[in-house]
């Protein structure tokens, strides 16, 4: 059993390099909720579940196990805000816990990298699951200092819930945990066509075949545009990146005119828990630079 109210915060690659505001927002939220986030020294790429696993499954597991073993030494569950990192770390953690032979095989290779050993003592958690289930709309109620009146197109992405047999979080066909959670902030989720399909970025598609990636994404944006939300809400920096650069690409190449602000769940939660709007950092993103969350400040509570 890992320590309570403490997480080893796994940053991943995209968030610290492209969207430090998500990192800041996450730390702000977890601090407000009373959690301690620990830095994972020498943590590396998760590595990405699509590309690396396709080439060499065992080596993919070895590298993931290395990251996990760092958190094991800190005696803390891992927290990630990225579906990709979650996909890799959660699956490897579960598989190695359940398969002794595999564990021995991975640990043999792991030893060559230094003083690392996978023991299977911690869990890997995703921010969507921690906020949606552990805290829940009922648990956040008292901490809210701002209620907003916005409509969101919620994008779950793929690796958060699928494969359901391994994740064991919720049905991947009709999940509602993010929608239920953000309702506490006054955000109304708009269901749209094929809401649960891929954003087109994952699995190495964005890097390998940009056209295919944009075809998938173009379809996604068309479906989102039909319901005209105020923001696109995601729970993954890679989806975040796709929604940002993708809208820009469609505007420049496919005669579109999209300007939907892209907001990570951490960013929205941080804003409603009182983080100043500048630090949420929409103005540093590509889309919806001028978007303001607005909403009413609740009396008796102070923003910081």
């Amino acid at each position, binding site marked *: 059993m890992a320590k309570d109210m403490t997480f080893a915060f796994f940053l991943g690659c995209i968030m610290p390099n492209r969207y430090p505001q998500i990192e800041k927002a996450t730390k702000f939220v977890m601090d407000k909720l009373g959690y301690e986030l620990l830095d994972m020294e020498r943590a590396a790429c998760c590595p990405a579940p699509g590309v690396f696993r396709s080439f060499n499954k065992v080596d993919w597991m070895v590298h993931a196990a290395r990251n996990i073993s760092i958190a094991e030494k800190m005696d803390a569950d891992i927290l990630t805000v990225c579906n990709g990192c979650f996909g890799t770390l959660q699956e490897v953690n579960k598989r190695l816990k359940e398969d002794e032979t595999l564990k021995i095989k991975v640990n043999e290779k792991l030893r060559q990298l230094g003083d690392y050993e996978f023991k299977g003592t911690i869990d890997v958690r995703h921010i969507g699951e921690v906020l949606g289930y552990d805290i829940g709309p009922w648990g956040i109620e008292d901490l809210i200092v701002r209620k907003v009146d916005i409509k969101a197109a919620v994008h779950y992405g793929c690796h958060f819930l699928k494969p359901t047999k391994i994740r064991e979080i919720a049905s991947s*066909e009709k999940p509602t945990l993010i929608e239920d959670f953000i309702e506490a902030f006054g955000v109304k989720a708009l269901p749209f066509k094929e809401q649960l399909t891929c954003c087109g970025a994952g699995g190495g598609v964005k890097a390998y075949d940009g056209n295919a990636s944009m075809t998938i994404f173009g379809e996604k944006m068309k479906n989102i545009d039909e*319901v005209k939300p105020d923001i696109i809400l995601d729970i993954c920096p890679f989806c975040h990146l796709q929604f940002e650069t993708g809208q820009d690409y469609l505007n420049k190449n496919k005669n579109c005119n999209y300007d939907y602000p892209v907001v990570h769940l951490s960013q929205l939660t941080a804003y409603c828990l009182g983080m100043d709007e500048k630090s949420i950092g929409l103005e540093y993103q590509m889309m919806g630079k001028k978007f303001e969350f607005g909403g009413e400040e609740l009396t008796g509570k102070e923003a910081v």
Partner: protein
Amino acid sequence: MTEKVKTKSTDIGKSPEEEGEEPRIGVYVCHCGHNIAGTVDVEKVAEYASKLPNVVEAKDYMFMCSKPGVQLLKDAIKEKGVNKTVVASCSKNQHGRTFARTIEEMGLNKHLHQQVNIREFCSWVHKKDHEKATEKAKKLVEAGVNRARKLEEVETKKIPTTKAALVIGGGIAGLRSTFDMAELGIPVYLVERNSTIGGHMTRLNKTFPTNECPQCSISPLTNGVANHPLVELYTNAQVKSVDGTMGNFEVEIEISPRYVKDNCTSCGECAAACPVEVPSEWDKGMSTRGAIYKAYPQAIPATYVRDKKTCINCNTCINVCPVQAVDFSMEPETKKLKVGSIVVATGYEEYDPSEIDAYHYGQEGYENVITQLQLERILGPTSMTGSEVLRPSDGKIPKHVVMIQCVGSRNEQVGNKYCTGVCCKFATKNSGILKEMYPDSEISICYIDMRTPGLNFEEYYKDAQEKGVRFIRGRPSEILRDPISGELSVIVEDTLSQTPLRLKADLVVLSAAMIPPQGIGPLGSKLQILRSKEGFFKEFHIKMNPTASSKGGVYLAGTIQGPKDISETVAHAGNAAALAAQPLVKGYIEKEMLIPTIDYDLCMDCGMCITACNPAAISMNEKGHPIVNEVACRSCGMCMPACPTGAIQLLNFRDDQLLDEIVPISGGGIVCNE
């Protein structure tokens, strides 16, 4: 009838040896043409056998199963006083019985014959090494001689049977079995859980491959059974307990009250006046019924029935009934039945697809996703829509219908690996019917493999293709709903052209699997019969005995043994009836007393043998000692290895007898604990 039952030996279990009679063994090695002699040197084997202790004669012969071969045995018994025979030829299953019967004709107990298999176990598997094969044959024969030395006589007993049968389940299988047995002059008790008989077949619109009206096909049988002088019909009834064994069972049934007396004229005034409206189970929710109702117009018995759970006790029905048939004071009653055979025909249940998330069956917004059985109820002659296909969401005629095959079948995710085997046929049927009714509509069937084997079915499949039904090879990944328009589409890859498709669907029909009915477990335990891992009741032998259960005297009819179509069910049920009737018509059961004996000096009363006994033939007596029910025992021997002290020993399979047999094969290298 020839009297074949021997009751010669009164002190069973004693071998002639113990009685002082010296074993005189005859050994006969068969050439089986070249089958054995081509590999094994049969003459050497016979010569070797002739030198073994107690062997008075050893011969080899071309075909032991031929008339002159059999004559060798007869002559030896007559002329040389042979009292145990060993034939080294093929397997016991193949000709063991032939030789046993021969020695029986000569006045020996048939259990004194020992079969040795030197064909399947020797010549056929060692074709290339003649010498070693011959050596092995010698060892096998020596083992057989050793085994023969201590063989004991086994008595065959006649057990009188109760001339009556119980049939559980009043669907097509139960009706067929009931009628067939009643026609043989056997009184039959038919117990049905629901308020009417007829089962699933009465719910169908048409039957494949002739598109006949199922009501017309089944109603002569339902009427025939209900009016048969030898049939006693209990509806709303369930089996409460089962006691006894093959030939003589005592069954207790519980009958729930109908709350309507038999003087009901079926006028329907009560139902018309009933203020309650709930979904009709018989109609699979495609219509409603009152709290007092008749499942369907042709229902048998035609007496109305009150559903106490949904009734609001307003007493309107009591007041409107012109013959005062409605009576709320009726009580449940139990009945004890004595029967000789039991036929289980509890049928199947349609798989509930709500478990498969991606198809959203039963979820809000997905009202237009229905099952094939529901479609049958929409199409049926007594349907609420007047047989018009109107989709549940808005009552419009669907322009695009997509049928999805293998919903709950061939699906390891939901735990059903098996193919139901009839869904391709009924989907082909219903798609063809829809295409005929609505030629402008597009009807598609998404399948993994089309499986329409058997006479007339390829033509049936082709016929649907020619009518314009679109067959798409691919298992749909999901049913999507546009949250704005509410329209459904089915996502599937046409794997023949490798094209991802999005099929517009005004109505989606799921071809759901046939699964074992709910609540079948307790009935299985009461009957003490085994189930297959899929949950159906397990047959005794898949090829040779598909209607016998694991327990003697209990037979399986129809889909309770596994998915079947109506033709197969009827044939299966007819066979179950024939088997169940045999001991009842004959009046007795012949039972070989090849049963275990218990040495109570060694027995510790631990009960391990009871746990190991599949047919539940061993039980504790009132003194706490295990006793063997000689009628129920199936001579499987499972109790022997379970016994920690060796107290329980199966006749002719005793530890010392088996040890004698093993020693020559192992070269004497046996480590014995004793």
